């Protein structure tokens, strides 16, 4: 930690307000009033003007020194935009249930009591039918359960088909899914494809394209395509 007096002028060499302002004067970052004060002092004091030349040297060499530092690699921008895309996806996912709830509330509010009663009856019937179908599936031998594949499961929201690299470990795949806030919903198909769900809502085509493009650059992924 550098130790220095906070506001005290050192006694061993001259510290004046004007002297202290020289660096900002040289950089052109003083307010007009202060700038005029320094300019007047420089006109009247040749010794101060000589010291101001030292400021000019320091200024120039500081710029040169910083310019030699180069620039960050393009992967910084790529990583940043990937992180932003992930956050946008997560935000859309979080917003989706609220939107559905609002739509449902509005839809039910517009129905008359009689219509609601009829709709409730149909809903009860549909639930009973689903229960019967599930019972049928689970009581069949396991070999007869239809295998998953593209088109076998149609889902709401946005999905993509992905084939993971052979050398990808389970931890890497988990990390990949976490990065994209994705969940495995189907697969593998005979070709080793998995369907991953990216968002509860439908993403714009361009945005989905960007996400899939980024997935393709991930070393865990061998193949990725939007699930149209």
């Amino acid at each position, binding site marked *: *930690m*550098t*130790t*220095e*007096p*906070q*506001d*005290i002028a*050192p006694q061993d*060499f001259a*510290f004046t*307000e004007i*002297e*202290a*302002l020289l*660096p*900002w*004067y*040289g*950089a*052109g*970052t*003083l*307010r007009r009033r202060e*700038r005029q004060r320094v300019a007047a002092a*420089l006109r009247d004091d040749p010794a101060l*003007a*000589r*010291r*101001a*030349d*030292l*400021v*000019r*040297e*320091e*200024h*120039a*060499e*500081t*710029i*040169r*020194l*910083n310019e030699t*530092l180069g*620039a*960050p*690699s393009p*992967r*910084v*921008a790529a*990583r*940043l*935009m990937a*992180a*932003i*895309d992930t*956050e*946008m996806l997560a935000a859309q996912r979080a917003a989706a249930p609220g939107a559905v709830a609002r739509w449902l509330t509005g839809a039910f509010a517009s129905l008359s009591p009689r219509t609601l009663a009829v709709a409730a009856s149909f809903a009860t019937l549909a639930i009973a039918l689903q229960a019967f179908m599930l019972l049928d599936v689970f009581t069949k031998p396991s070999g007869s359960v239809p295998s998953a594949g593209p088109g076998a499961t149609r889902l709401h929201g946005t999905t993509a088909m992905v084939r993971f690299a052979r050398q990808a470990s389970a931890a890497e795949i988990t990390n990949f899914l976490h990065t994209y806030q994705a969940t495995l919903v189907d697969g593998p198909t005979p070709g080793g494809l998995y369907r991953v769900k990216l968002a509860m809502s439908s993403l714009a085509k361009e945005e989905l394209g960007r996400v899939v493009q980024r997935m393709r650059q991930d070393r865990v992924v061998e193949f990725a395509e939007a699930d149209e």
Partner: protein
Amino acid sequence: MRAFEPLFICRDKLCNPTLGAMQAPADETLIGQIARGDRLAMQVLFSRHHVRIYRFVLRVVRDEMAAEDVIGEVFLDVWRQASRFEGRSAVSTWLMAIARFKALSFLRKRRDDALDEQAAESIEEPSDDPELTVAKQDKGEKLRACLAGLSREHREIIDLVYYHEKSVEEVALIVGIPENTVKTRMFYARKKLGELCRMAGLDRGWP
């Protein structure tokens, strides 16, 4: 010898010499767009500032990979916090303040933090030691070697004033110290620079 004059008189946005008057959206406009989730505005802001922020961070952390990680975090914070920007300072000053906080957090996490914080004042890194490296160099190179040999705090303030062209008020905001302390610290940084130069055989006649 030419008269000592400031490089830029006008720091108003409308006469920004690099941007022109009406061509590019102001940083404040971009921040507003980013707050509404505009990805393109984020790309523009990033491309406009990332090199300077990177150099500022690199001079603090002295590690290129770490500096890249830090600036990624800085701009991700901007994406998340854009709606909280109140416009009390220039956007570049706000970015610098975030970058400085992140860079210092990185240094604190690093195990050899103590060396960086405590010893930099008295122990120059081998590559920065002015006595070892500047014997046969010209005046400019000697001066740059001595600038690199300053402590982190002195490097920081000199960079902010000379390279990033920050006013006294802006440096105070970024570093989080009173304006008078900014002036004093800059003065001491320059004094230390003069001492390093003298050690390196470059007597500038001040202090």
